[in-house]
């Protein structure tokens, strides 16, 4: 994709939607500012300086601007393109975020690139809960400083095995056959959510397959500026889908879903992989949206009130806002909305590792907007879950960040339906 900023009419309608503008008040940290910088740098690369690189690299890729822009200017995508081009700057040059990404991208590929790597990742994370080992883990060279605060958002109990198993109770007369996409963080740290997704799909009369061959969607690499890794992994996932015989791919991590709905962007149109990627794209559905369309039973009213955080890659990236709410309401939850529920929490893939200061300001904003008396914050994305949870723990309250699928499963489970 060539970076074409020509569509931007400089109207400024995107400013208040942009978390980094809201946080800093700086035009240069706004979508319009970034588009202008890209435009001028395209004309004259000599203009590049540290500040400009920082303004561009501060972009969360949250796509809030793209959703509101009347001219469909793909700001987030353009910044990503720019990062992919610039990430090859020699070491020690460029914004701090680039340096962090370079340091962790190798280990990321190892851990998330295969089931074996994921098992290791899960082990390391589990051990990190033990004080002595935790310290050792957090001082491994590739673990950035910022990951230490992130680990505060981990669930108290990290599962011992990956989530790639078939659960009981397949439906007798399934109406659809779905491949469960297990992801990387979901597969390890939130393995239970994957189990719950399976249970609910089956409750909704859908047959579930969980191919072993699948792997991380590649979003972290794509957003960080290493599209070639993303491309390889996309090919693996496309093959897993084709072999599975499923007609639907259910994804419960908003970030992965948004990425997989754009797999074709990774390939040239002439490439045979392009058409295959398109077929996968069409099959991908978000778990909450898909579940909301299934005949699940009405649940009994739940006591405590919950609130909903709209992950960027669900709301802005996939236009899904109402479905998780419908699903939760049907399971019996009462929702009290939080202000700016669709403003980025600062997690943004590995942004919280590469840009800890901005990520923490946004995290603070997010947890402060959780209304009084709320028990749980529903968030359909692992990055948001961990990041918001870390923020909530800092507040030393008892509020928990929970995936909506888990909330729904628990409600049905209490009633003995699953």
């Amino acid at each position, binding site marked *: 994709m060539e970076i074409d900023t020509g569509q931007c009419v400089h109207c400024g309608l995107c400013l208040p939607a942009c978390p980094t503008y809201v946080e800093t008040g700086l035009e240069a940290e706004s979508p319009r500012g970034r588009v202008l910088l890209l435009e001028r740098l395209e004309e004259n690369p000599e203009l590049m300086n540290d500040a400009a690189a920082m303004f561009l690299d501060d972009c969360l890729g949250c796509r809030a601007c793209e959703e509101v822009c009347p001219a*469909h200017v793909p700001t987030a995508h353009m910044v990503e393109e720019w990062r992919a081009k610039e990430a090859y700057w020699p070491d020690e040059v460029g914004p701090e975020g680039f340096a962090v990404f370079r340091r962790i991208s190798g280990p990321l590929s190892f851990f998330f690139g295969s089931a074996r790597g994921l098992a290791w990742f899960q082990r390391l994370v589990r051990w990190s809960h033990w004080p002595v080992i935790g310290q050792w883990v957090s001082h491994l060279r590739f673990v950035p400083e910022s990951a230490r605060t992130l680990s505060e958002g981990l669930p108290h109990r990290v599962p011992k095995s990956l989530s790639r198993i078939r659960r009981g109770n397949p439906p007798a007369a399934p109406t659809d056959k779905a491949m469960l996409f297990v992801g990387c963080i979901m597969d390890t740290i939130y393995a239970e959510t994957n189990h719950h997704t399976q249970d609910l799909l089956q409750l909704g009369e859908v047959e579930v397959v969980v191919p072993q061959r699948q792997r991380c969607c590649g979003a972290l690499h794509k957003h960080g500026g290493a599209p070639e890794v993303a491309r390889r992994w996309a090919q693996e996932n496309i093959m897993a889908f084709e072999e599975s015989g499923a007609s639907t791919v259910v994804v419960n991590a908003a970030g992965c879903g948004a990425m997989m709905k754009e797999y074709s962007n990774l390939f040239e149109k002439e490439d045979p992989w392009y058409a295959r990627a398109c077929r996968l794209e069409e099959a991908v559905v978000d778990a909450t949206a898909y579940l909301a369309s299934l005949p699940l039973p009405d649940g009994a009213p739940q006591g405590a009130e919950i609130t909903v955080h709209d992950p960027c890659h669900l709301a802005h990236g996939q236009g899904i806002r109402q479905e998780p709410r419908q699903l939760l309401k049907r399971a019996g939850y009462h929702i009290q909305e939080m202000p700016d529920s669709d403003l980025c929490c600062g997690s943004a893939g590995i942004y919280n590792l590469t840009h800890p200061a901005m990520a923490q300001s946004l995290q603070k904003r997010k947890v402060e907007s959780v209304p009084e008396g709320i028990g749980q914050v529903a968030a359909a994305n692992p990055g948001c879950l961990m990041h918001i949870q870390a923020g909530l723990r800092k507040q030393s309250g008892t509020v928990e960040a929970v995936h909506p699928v888990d909330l729904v499963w628990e409600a049905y489970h209490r009633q003995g339906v699953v």
Partner: protein
Amino acid sequence: MEDSLIEALKMAVGARYLVLDPMALLTYCCDGYTLAEESPRAVVLPATVEEVQAVVKILSAANIPFLARGAGTSLSGGATPLNGSVIIHLSRMNKICEIDVENRVVVVEPGVVNVHITRALEPYGYYYAPDPSSQQACTIGGNFAENSGGPHCLKYGVTVNHILMAEVVTGAGEVVRIGNLAGEPEGPDLLGLVIGSEGTLLVATKLWLRMTPKPQDSQTVLALFDEVGEASQAVSDIVAAGVIPAALEMMDQLAIYAVERGAYPVGYPPGLAAVLLIEVDGEAHEVPAVAEDVHTVLSAHQVREVKMAATPEEKARWWANRKTAFGAMGLISRQYYVQDGVIPRSRLPEALSRIAEIGQRYDIQIANVFHAGDGNLHPLLLYDERDSDLVERVIAAGSEILEACVQLGGSITGEHGVGIEKREDMRRQFNDTELSAQYAVKDAFDPPGLLNQGKLLPSAPTCFEAKPAPVQSS
């Protein structure tokens, strides 16, 4: 800038909030009007009125020009820095300070986004009435400076009708309050004078706004036309029938083409020449009847279809579609130049055919989106900045359109302001005596002429030798 000045500004707002990096400054080189560009000397982001005051004092002592900036959505270059000005960006002063339901007053800082006020008032059953199409982004400080209007101002009035009191910092760095909570001017109407002065007289730091009760009910009627003339006639007839719609908007063929590709397509059938959007509101019992009246008037014309919004969602979509029309131009053209002329409503058909004729003569595509109810035209002249000949034609055609508006008995700006863009066109509308009165006002408020240089008033006043004595501003 001198080191001592930099240090002083840092002391005033904090080092973090003084911007000097050239690339950061570059992003402030223009606002929604992209035909003039200049990087500011510096940008400061104050958080309080005291900080604004300190900054203004430092700059005026050093004789450095400066201007306030809100969201930079101005369409006339109002927020574009000229002559090495310093920008006072008020984005951090974005708090809603108080909602006084009893007295129906909401107190806000200047950097609050227009629609955020309405959102904050919603739970109380109120809203802030003036609704520029840019309301999702533009700030109340910018609205104050431009005396902004919007679709619903036909019935509810523009910004000046909704600001009761203002706290301002003068060019000399004094903090003054203008107006009062009763909303009645004591003596000369200073508040009326400074609202709409495009940032050339002072910087607003806090505003007391009227809260308007939400109408009990509202309905939107949509009419699809195969002929622009019929649509313009329908507009006149609706108003002649005694209906005061809350909003009455029109889009022509090219505008429809663009919005249908934008973020909120409605699904208009192909080949339409114009659509009219008419909103009526009021007491629950009267709205359906008035909507019916509108329906009847419309149906008496050659109209392809007349529809009422079936659901709130449908209505919201029609309006979102209309409100993003300018931005959607980006989908059919690299740039657009929006004009903002006003004409008497009855001359609408004539004005439209003159615009079409001008477009043809200069070979420019022109889309029309406008507040038909109050005769406020927004012809959008499409161009590409890489074609310098086209740029020149666009500017000339724009100027001719304004001339036509004045000839038809109208004015050169409805709501977007004069800014840089229409500075010289001011001479079309005002004679030397009238202009010299305006210079006198400027001089009374800002004798050294530091505030928002190069805007609003035409350059080189031929009639300004006899400089009137400065008057106290407060």
